[in-house]
Structure formats: C-alpha cells, structure tokens
C-alpha cells in the first residue's frame, strides 16, 4: 500500500497493518476522536492517600448498583399479608407482608442471597461513611475554595441523598426495626407546621402505614433516588475532570499545573485495582460480619418494639438530637407545634445550610476571591480547622446520644443521666474543641518554623571547650551567619527526624524483602551503571 507516490497523491498517513490499528482507524474514520481521546488518556491525576476517600464512595456506589440489581430479582415490596412458609422454621406459619417474606426468602431460600444482601447493606454504610470522610478531607484542606464551590454543593447533595437512600433501603424489608423507623419518620412529617398532616397522608396514601407505601418507597429506592445520585456523581466527576484535581503544594508545584501520573495506563490500573480491593473489603464484611439480621427482629407490628432499637449509623445523629431535645411544645391558637419538629427538621436544615454556605462565608470573611488549586495543611488555617472540629464534636455528641440507652446499659449508668450529660456536652464540648484545636494548630505551626530556623534535633550532645553543653541541630538548607535556616515555610510537611531526610532519592538501590537480591555480575554492573546515570542526572536537575 505504500507504493503510491507522494507526488501525485495528497499526503496521507500509512495504512495501519495491525488489527488494533485497523480497529482504531475504523472508529476514528467515523467519530474523529483521536485528538480528544489522547487528551483524556494523557490526563494527569495527582496522588495522595487522602484522595482515595472519594474513590471509596464511588466504588461503594458501584457495588450498591450491582448487588442492588441482584436483589431486585427476588424482592417483592408488596404489603399484602401472607403466611410464611419458607425454610426458616421459627417464622413458619406467621403472618407477614410479602416484603418481609421475600426478604426472608433472599436470606434463606436464595442460594447466596444472604451474602449479597449483607454486601449491599455494608456497601450502603460504607458509601455514606466514605462520603463523609471525603467531605472532611475537602473541608480541612480547603479544597472547596474557588473554583470548586459547585462541587462542594453537589457533594453535599450527594451526602443528603445517600442518607435518604440508605434510610429508604433499610425500611423496605418491613421488619420490626425498620417499621419502627418509618413510624418515627411519619411522626416527623406530622410535626411540620401547617402542612404536616397533609404531607404524611400524601406520602403514606392515608394513615400510617397504609397499603401502598412500600411500593412507592421501593421505586424511589431503586429508580428515582439512585437515578439522581448517578446524575450528580456524573456531574461531580465531570467537574473534577474539567477543573482538574487539586493537590498539595511541594516540590515545585504551582497553582497553574497539576503533577502526578497519567490516566493511561498507570492511574487506570491503580484505580481499577483499588475498585476491586474496595469490593473485596465489602464482600469480606458481607461474608463474615452479620448485618441487619431481620429474621431475629420479626415482622413489623405497630404494637411492638424492642429495646436497643438503633438505626443505621448515619441516622444516629438525628436519633440523638431527638432524644436530647427538651420537651418544649408550642401551643398557639388551637394549634400544636410538636417538639419533634426542632431536632429532626430544623436542626438538619440548619446544619446543611451552614455547610452549603461555608465556602462563600469563608471567602467573604477572609476576602479571598482567588483561584486555589493548591491545598492547605489544616494547621495553617486554624480558624477553619477549629470550626470543623467544633462541628464534628457537635455531631459526635449527637451520634453517641443516639445510642445512649446502650451506653447506659453497658456501663450501668442512669439513662436520665446520659440524657442530661448529652444535653450539657452538646453545649459545652464544641467550644472546648474549638479552643483546643486552635492551640494545637498554632503549636504545630510554631514547631514547623522552629525546625526550619534551627534544624532537626539530632540527639547529639556536644560539650564546648567552655564547658557548655549544646545539642547539635541539622539545618535543612543554607543558613545565615547565625546558623539560622534560610528556608521559608511553604505549606508542605517539614521533616522532623533525621530519618526523614534523604528519602527523596529517586533510585531504589536495594531490592528484595527478606534479603537483598543478588544479580548476576554482568547484570549487576549494568544496573549499577544505570543507577549512577540516573542519580547524576537527578542531581544535575536539582542543581540547575
């Protein structure tokens, strides 16, 4: 095919000969994607352990989609009463809804069904947990700042939807625990002023529990909410691609560049491998850690409840706020505003609004309207870090109060004392957390400066001819006449121990885990040569 003369024909590329090349040409002739595709393959992602939190959330969601689809083949959300006749003998002959019976079937009659059910439940817990930790990472490193406010808001929406989706999911089996949770959800709807009863009747199709509710909840759980979550995740990731990932400062990194590894092939292999590792962890949890054993709870009966009824972890803070809120009811002009309204509707509303507004408030307060692609160390922004710890402390008090009956039982404390302790702690601990975090941040900052100025403590004590004892410090860089370091703090970790110096060497000289690998002499010589060339090239680059 290369016999045609370039003089008589317009210039054209040589025809591909390999099957892969032919395939590529076939696609490109039709879609014209060579340029954009190469750009995506060459896209650079920075690497840091804290960036994996969002990945865990994403992969948990994929696991949820996979296992959830499996479960839909067997689950029936109907509230029709049936008499159980499956393999789990203790429940045989008991009246229950089709929803509960089919969940028992998944657990006992479908081969491998229980594993998938448990993986699904664990993945839901992990999904919300990973989103929350990911949010902490974004908050404490300032990754939400301009230009990434949109993604902060999308992420908050995902967290809220993830919690709603999880609640919908564990309410579906219609067991005693989930039915109790739904009853409380109904009471929360009823507590809304003016429209509360109408909202409750709209959702349940009449008085609680009605006959249609689980069917509605089911379609919301398997189609409506996951559809919205999927769309928001797509937007979230599209914005990460469009704006490129933020990264920590260091090693010549600037606001105008991103450094790391290209998507193809290294980052793709690592991220793909990490998906399977997350899936493996969830599968192991599903295999070895029992979760939501609904056959021990029994079918839902409005007249029954068991003590120690805790919701899934992400609902616990609302349970706790409900337990702690005092019995304050407002009665006006023949109307009632129940106490349930404040801790379950107003409080999460305020928390969500504060989180949503935070990036804009911080920009306003600090008058910082710049683009930021380099992340901050939490210690360098003590006010933000302390505010974050204050919020987390508030959340943790609510979370623990959600299980205060268990704590009271296990540690033999009065239940009433736990409630009062929670109320007091909720007001007192957050400010203490703020003050303590602020001091810790300043302390860490000062130590960084101290090491930059005076060097690392070597642990070597020297006696001067005058009889004075001094400790020898290793300066990190050039020093002035007084021996003080000239390096400025640049937002990167400062080495604090002698062992942390010199780890940047690009060449791994010794290979082998238990003992060094000994190569054949001629190979070893070649390796030494390559290593020496590499090292000298590096040093040359550094001195430039």
């Amino acid at each position, binding site marked *: 095919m290369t016999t045609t003369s370039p003089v008589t024909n317009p210039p054209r590329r040589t025809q591909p000969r390999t099957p892969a090349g032919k395939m590529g040409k076939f696609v490109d002739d039709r879609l014209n994607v060579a340029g954009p595709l190469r750009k995506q393959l060459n896209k650079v992602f920075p690497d840091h352990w804290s960036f994996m939190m969002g990945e865990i959330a994403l992969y948990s969601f994929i696991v949820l989609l996979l296992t959830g689809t499996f479960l839909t083949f067997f689950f029936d959300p109907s509230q029709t009463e049936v008499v159980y006749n499956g393999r789990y003998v203790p429940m045989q002959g008991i009246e229950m809804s089709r929803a509960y019976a089919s969940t028992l079937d998944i657990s006992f009659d479908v081969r491998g069904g229980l594993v998938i059910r448990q993986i699904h439940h664990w993945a839901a817990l992990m999904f919300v947990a990973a989103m929350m930790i990911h949010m902490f990472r974004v908050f404490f490193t300032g990754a939400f700042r301009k230009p990434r406010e949109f993604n902060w808001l999308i992420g908050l929406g995902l967290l809220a939807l993830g919690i709603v989706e999880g609640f919908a999911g564990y309410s579906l089996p219609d067991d005693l625990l989930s039915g109790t949770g739904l009853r409380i959800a109904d009471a929360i709807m009823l507590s809304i002023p003016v429209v509360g009863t109408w909202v409750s009747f709209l959702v349940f199709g009449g008085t609680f529990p009605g006959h249609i509710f689980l069917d509605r909840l089911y379609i919301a759980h398997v189609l409506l909410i996951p559809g919205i979550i999927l769309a928001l995740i797509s937007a979230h990731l599209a914005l990460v691609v*469009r704006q490129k990932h933020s990264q920590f400062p260091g090693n010549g990194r600037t606001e105008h560049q991103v450094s*790391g*590894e290209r998507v193809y092939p290294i980052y793709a292999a690592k991220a793909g491998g990490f998906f399977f590792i997350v899936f493996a*962890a969830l599968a192991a949890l599903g295999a070895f850690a029992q979760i939501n054993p609904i056959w021990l709870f029994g079918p839902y009966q409005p*007249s029954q409840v068991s003590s120690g009824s805790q919701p899934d972890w992400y609902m616990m803070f609302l349970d706790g706020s409900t337990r702690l809120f005092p019995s304050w009811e407002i009665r006006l002009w023949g109307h009632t505003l129940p106490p349930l309204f404040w801790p379950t509707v107003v409080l999460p509303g305020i928390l969500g609004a504060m989180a949503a507004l935070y990036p804009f408030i911080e920009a306003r307060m600090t008058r910082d309207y710049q*683009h930021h692609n380099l992340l901050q160390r939490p210690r360098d922004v003590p006010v933000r870090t302390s505010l974050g710890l204050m919020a987390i402390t508030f959340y943790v008090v609510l979370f623990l109060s959600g299980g205060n009956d268990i704590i009271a039982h296990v540690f033999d404390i009065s239940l009433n004392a736990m409630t009062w302790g929670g109320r007091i702690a909720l007001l007192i601990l957050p400010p203490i957390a703020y003050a303590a975090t602020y001091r810790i941040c300043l302390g860490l900052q000062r130590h960084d400066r101290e090491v930059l100025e005076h060097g690392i403590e070597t642990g070597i004590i020297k006696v001067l001819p005058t009889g004075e004892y001094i400790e020898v410090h290793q300066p990190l860089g050039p020093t002035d006449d007084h021996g003080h370091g000239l390096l400025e703090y640049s937002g990167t970790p400062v080495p604090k121990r002698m062992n942390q110096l010199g780890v940047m060497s690009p060449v791994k000289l010794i290979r082998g885990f238990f003992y060094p690998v000994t190569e054949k002499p001629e190979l070893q010589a070649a390796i030494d040569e390559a290593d020496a060339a590499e090292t000298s090239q590096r040093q040359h680059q550094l001195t430039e």
Partner: protein
Amino acid sequence: MTEVNYGNSPSADELRSMSPEEAMIAGAEVDGVHIVHRRERFPVRGSKAEKRAERAVAACFAIAGLAGVGFIVAFIAVPFHWHLPGTPQDFKYFTPAVGGTLALMLLFFGVGLVLWAKWLMPEEEVVQDRHDDPSKVEDQMMTEATLAVGLEDTGIRRRSVLLLSVLGAGGALATVPLVYLVGSLLKRPGTTLFHTMFQRNTKLFPQSKGMVPIVYSDWRQVSPDDLLPGGLATVFPGVRQPSEGYDGVHNASSPTLLIRLRPGQVVHPRKGQADFGWPKQNPQYIAFSKICTHAGCPASLYEQQTGRLLCPCHQSQFDVLSDAKPVFGPATRSLPKLPLEVLTGKDGRLYFYARSDYHEPIGPGFWERP
C-alpha cells in the same frame, strides 16, 4: 473546552521517523502534558528482581483465579439450607465460604493490578498545565453579544404581550405536572387522626350499645381475671371487618396498654378522667394508648415497682400513677386514657369494653391538634 495548542504538532513525516515513545511524548506535549521524568522500573531487562516482581504479580492473578474456582465449588457444594438448632448446623459455613472466596478473588485481582502498576509499569512524573482562568475577555464579549442578539432576534423585549403570554404558559407548563402529581397523591386527613377503632359502633356491636370489645392480638376477649396485680397486656379494639378495611389488631393507632395496678397503688387522675378506670371508684385497671405521644413508638417498657412506662425509642418516661403524665424525656403530653367498661359475657365471665373512644388524639402531635 478551549483548545490550546502547545508548540507545534510534529508533522506526519516527523512522527514516522520517531520511536513510539517519542511520538507519545510529542502527543502529550501537544496536550499540555509534560513528562518531566520517566524511567523503567527495571532499566536492565531480565534481572532477578524483575522476574521476582513479575512472578509476584502473576501469583496474585493466579490466586484470584483459584479463589474464583473455589467460589464456584463452594457455591455448589456447601450445604446452605437452614436447620433447627440441635440438627447438624452445616449450613452456617455457606455464607463465609461463598463470601470469603468472592472476597479473596476480588482482593487478589485488585492487588495484582495495583502491584502491576507500582512494580512493573514505568515510574513517571508528569506535569499538566491547568487552564482554569476565566475565558478570554474577547470570548466573553462575543458570547455575550451572541446571547444578546439571539434574545433580540426573538423580539421578546419589544413584544410585551408575547412575553406575558409566554410567561403565563410557562407557568402553567411548570405547575400542571406538580398539580397532577401532588393532586393525585393527596389525601384529605379529615378527622382520621382524631379517632381510633375504639369509636362506638352500634352497627357492629348492638348488644353492647356500640361499645367495642377489647381483645388480645389473637382476638380473644380480655377479662379482668387474666391479669395478675402489677401485670399489663397489650390489647386492641375487637373490630374485625377486613373487607371494610377494619382490622383492630393490625391498625397502627389502636394498640392499648391495659394495666392492673398492685394493691395499694393509687392513681392521681387527670381532670375529667377519674372514672375512666375499672372499677370506677378506686380503680384497679387502667388503660392507656400504647403509642408514644412523642414519635409514635410503642411505649412498652413498664416498671411495675415505680409505675413508670418507658418508650425505648427516645426514652420518654410516663408516670402511670399520674395518668401517664410525661416525667422525663422529649414527650410533652400524657398518654391518652381509654374509658373502660366491664360487661358480663354469654359465658357468665366479665369482659372489658371501651366505653368510648379516647377523648384526645393518640400518638405524636400535629398542627391541627389543639
């Protein structure tokens, strides 16, 4: 996306003379991606260390494959049918075996991929330029003009009648689906929340003048002799007309706690409820709605020594001897009290009836409640 070209893309002839790696680097440069550092993990091929790394990665994939085979074997061969305790409990190995092999397969496949990337693929340090400045002023201006002229072309600013009518139509288009959805889902609460199935019903119960019999969950009628002093029972309205939607036992608003006091326990009744118990003077039996007035859980933990009733959901506590007044926790209202009556049945035994419905709505508070 704004296309930025970095340097000049090499010509096809230049590319033909390049090695694939050089062509790759040239392509990256065109995309604003600078490969600062790139090095084979094992610059000298065929070394022991390289073979060892390759073997380790291959071993990961081999273990993943074997775990997959183990999964299939476990899935088919391990028994999983549930058996009563006392019989062989072999089924309990099924979930760990199946899930464990699944986890092993996934884990080693994932670890294999990660180690492949970390040990065998070249190490590289790549820097990509960001372009997150706002668009160029020229771009902004031209886009703004395009938008403005397009709007002008529609003439909507001049034609105010058209604007008003299209806004109106848009409002209708947005509102109609909302009305459709909400309207079809909406149910009028009416007075539903103010009644339970203890409401008098002369049609169903003519012989008791409409008073509803009180039953257990298995529909047996409740007799005063059933309870020992200090005992309590969860009871329901004996209304059983499933075809008409009446099912007193399964209805969510009707569960009621019937309590027999210990000798010597005296109730301090709320105003107007002094004769709700049985006997009317110096009552021994009293009945309260079981549905907590806070969030609707069944308040079911009764401590007969102190006469306190605890709701396990949010720890509201009610003092039964003060007509279930809330004494701790988030609940604000007493549990509604059911007026009891006792009639002689056909078999000559005494049976409980509800003299009337509760005098106030049961369960959690809501806006319309006085």
